[in-house]
């Protein structure tokens, strides 16, 4: 059991590839992409029902990483994705590492 940070990105789907490229580049140990169905922020509510285009939808990316790396990732992502595109959060988590 070790302490890690759980980074959670709620970000616009069209930017997913860019975020993943960033995560790969920073040698994040891993990430998992989770779907989102609907939401609201400062802008209008959105929902995926019946939608074909990827624009205007959010997707969630979760990544567990060591505190130092996690903060660097969050920082870089916030800079690179800039305004309006991602909500980035860090939570403390104890991880039972597989093997």
């Amino acid at each position, binding site marked *: 059991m070790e302490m890690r940070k759980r980074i959670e990105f709620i970000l616009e789907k*069209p930017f997913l590839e860019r975020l993943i490229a960033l995560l790969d580049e920073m040698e994040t140990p891993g990430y998992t992409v989770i779907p989102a169905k609907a939401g609201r922020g400062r802008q209008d509510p959105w929902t995926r*029902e*019946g*939608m*074909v*285009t990827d*624009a*205007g939808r959010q997707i969630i990316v979760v990544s567990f990483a060591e505190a130092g790396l996690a903060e660097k990732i969050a920082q870089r992502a916030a800079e690179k994705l*800039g305004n*309006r595109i991602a909500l980035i959060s860090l939570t403390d988590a104890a991880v039972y590492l597989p093997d």
Partner: protein
Amino acid sequence: MDSLLHLTLENLLSPTVLFFVLGVFAALTRSSLTIPEAIAKALSIYLVMAIGFKGGYQVSKAGIDLGLFLSLLAGMLLSFAVPFLAFAMLKVTTRLPTVDAASIAAHYGSISIVTFLAGTEVLKLLGHEAEGYMVAVAAVMEVPAILSGLWIAARAVTDKSSIGGMDNSLMREVLLNGSIVLLTGAFLIGVVTGEKGMATVSAFIVDPFKGVLCLFLLDMGLVAGRGLRTSWKYLKPGLLIFGIYMPVLGAGLGLFCGWALGLSLGGTVLFMILGASASYIAVPAAMRMALPDSQPAIPLALSLGITFPFNLTIGIPLYVTVASRVL
């Protein structure tokens, strides 16, 4: 005028249009009717695959000629040109930020494949089949519009930081966009397999086609209605009117192309529809990446909520009538 009225009425009372209206009604009354996202995507994959294959099949029968290449060229030029016109109109008639105007312009240079499908069906009912390669023209009309939009933004926007620019993933998104690859691929498969291929798959892609289109239009109605509900506030009068006259202008340019190329009536009408329609599938995602400071809701509401219904209900009959007069 009489035949236009007649045609419009007939069109308004077709199942395709009525299912679209049903969708809009359900969305505006906040009914719980929804179509799952995966199904909406599957329907659009089906429609793109079918229209691509059918176009290719027609080309395999008619043979490849110079008209095909000239039409492709004309389509690209049209798609390049329309955003400039659209941008100019928007700058003159609205107070939209430049980056939003550029984004909308790119949407209108591109095309709506569903409008194209609906047009094909109307033409078939009227007995005016179009050149099969018009499908290929549709496929080449997405990329140029995006490039134009970016070019306009790069020139006109002063705060360069708001332009995401053309990186690799965006370039791929634009060029190898799923619907373009499928449309082109299915078209080529149709060309190659011809009569035999058609015999194999027609019970899947020809017979139920119109019914599937009804279902998809129901969904488009739901999405358009929902979009109008949430985004109505952005659609200031100037923008709203743009959503109606811009397709007519685009159709005019398309008419010129069809006439200059000597296309059939059906082909000319499809060219008009390509000019008139605006993208709401591939371009929004691309422009979101390219111009992250633009508001994605505005072009979507405009192209799907105003221009698409306009074309579907009044536009198509209008273009048919005008083309019959002119040609």
